[in-house]
């Protein structure tokens, strides 16, 4: 459950990325976030794991007011979220397996248990046979799936993704969309910012469109 209440976000330098934004996403929903470049999609997503803080208003995630969270509490919020970043943020000095292991190491999951869960996550995104590979050896689509595996390995109830199909051809993008759908089908709340709305929303998927930091009608 995610709620934005009259959220303003101004970056230093006077750019208003979000203005008077109010919206609500229910638990188990899948939502597509669209809008022109610079509309504020990434900014909206960054407010959820408290990577950015709102200038005004409240962001509530799972009943917790994230905008007022103490610095020391932020790590525990992030462990309950699965985030896929626009620039992926993979670690290129370690294997696929160890990239996916990182969130579990941070959470202090015992190694045996963790190994099992890493393989399960890699299996879900179809990368199980590449666990020993280094990220540079993966194709663009495989790297994207690696980012997804890392985001879901700790079994978050909310999955947030920023442009997960950018730079991918349509077939590969469709694979990625299918992976998100499968997580949503088992009850995970999914919020995806994308330019590929057509791929994601052939049917009833809810769509939120931003324009210059406001909800577009």
């Amino acid at each position, binding site marked *: 459950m995610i709620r934005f209440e009259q959220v303003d976000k101004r970056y230093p330098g006077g750019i208003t990325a979000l203005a008077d934004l109010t919206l609500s996403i229910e638990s188990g929903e899948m939502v597509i976030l669209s809008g022109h470049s610079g509309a504020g999609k990434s900014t909206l997503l960054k407010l959820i*794991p408290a*990577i950015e803080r709102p200038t005004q208003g409240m962001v509530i995630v799972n009943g917790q007011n994230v905008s007022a969270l103490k*610095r*020391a509490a932020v*790590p*525990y*919020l*992030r*462990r309950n979220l699965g*985030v896929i*970043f626009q620039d992926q*943020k993979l*670690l*290129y*000095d370690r294997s696929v397996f160890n990239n996916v292991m*990182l*969130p579990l*190491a*941070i*959470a*202090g999951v*015992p*190694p045996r248990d963790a190994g099992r869960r890493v393989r399960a996550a890699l299996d879900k995104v179809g990368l199980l046979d590449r666990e020993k590979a280094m990220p540079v050896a993966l194709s663009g689509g495989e790297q994207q799936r690696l980012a997804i595996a*890392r985001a879901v390995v700790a079994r978050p109830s909310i999955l947030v993704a920023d442009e997960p199909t950018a730079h991918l051809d349509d077939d590969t993008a469709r694979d990625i969309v299918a992976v998100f759908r499968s997580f949503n089908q088992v009850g995970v709340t999914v919020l995806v910012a994308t330019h590929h709305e057509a791929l994601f929303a052939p049917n009833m998927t809810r769509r939120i469109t931003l324009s210059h930091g406001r909800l577009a009608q």
Partner: protein
Amino acid sequence: MKGWLLHHRKAAEQALHRLVATPVNTLLSAMVVGIALALPAGGNMLLVNVQQLAQRIAAAPQLSVFMSLESGKKEVDETESRLRHHPQVRDVRFVPREDTLRRLKQSEGIGEVIESLPRNPFPDAFVVLPRSETPEALETLRAEFVKYPGVEHVQLDSAWVQKLDALLRLARLAVTLLAAALGTALVAVTFNTIRLQILTQDAEIEVSRLLGATDAFIRRPFYYFGALQGLAGGAVAWLVVLCTTLLLRGPVSELASLYGVGFTLYVLPLPESILLFALAALLGWMGAWLSLSRHLHD
């Protein structure tokens, strides 16, 4: 509790991994730190040895009481009895002037000179062992004995020990200052390696934060890294001191035996070795702490 232990084990492993991953850097840092630590550690060991040697040689301070050349047998006997009955005197040994002359005639070099003298230039003397060995008591006795009729001069044979003691105290201060200066160098070396570590681990730190790592989780491997590097330096220092001691042992024993003293340099004992290692690890940890508070930003 189990999770906490796991985190620490992981952090220690990670730190060890980073040390092993750059063996040349690790070895060089350990050498720099080790040699910096070896100087005060070796200095301290030398001081302790010299102090023990001094104590051994000056086991019992004594007073030499010299009679004047003019004093006759009566005065000598009187002085001897006064010394023997003095409550502060433990023992008295009489050294007749003839004995001194004979002994010196036999000695190499000055024997001929002595031989050519027209008469015995040496006075009768007493070697007095006092009951109390404090410098004050010795001084009181000296002042008292010198007033006895026929006594020309009283010499405190422990004066040089006191001088040596003062000198040793000065040397100890110097070693302490040296230790402080070189300890700071150790902290500085760790400070810098950790700074470079933070720079190279930049991506990992950022991603870990985004995935929910606490500050403690991110800092822990660096603390272990600093402490381990300090420990490696401590080990080098320990080896340097050990090798130096073993190398010096033979020559020093030989030298001591020339002076009629049986003496062996002792090797850094266990408590001091542990102290050295602990101090090295602590200084490395401190360097890491300083570097983290300076270079790790959120």
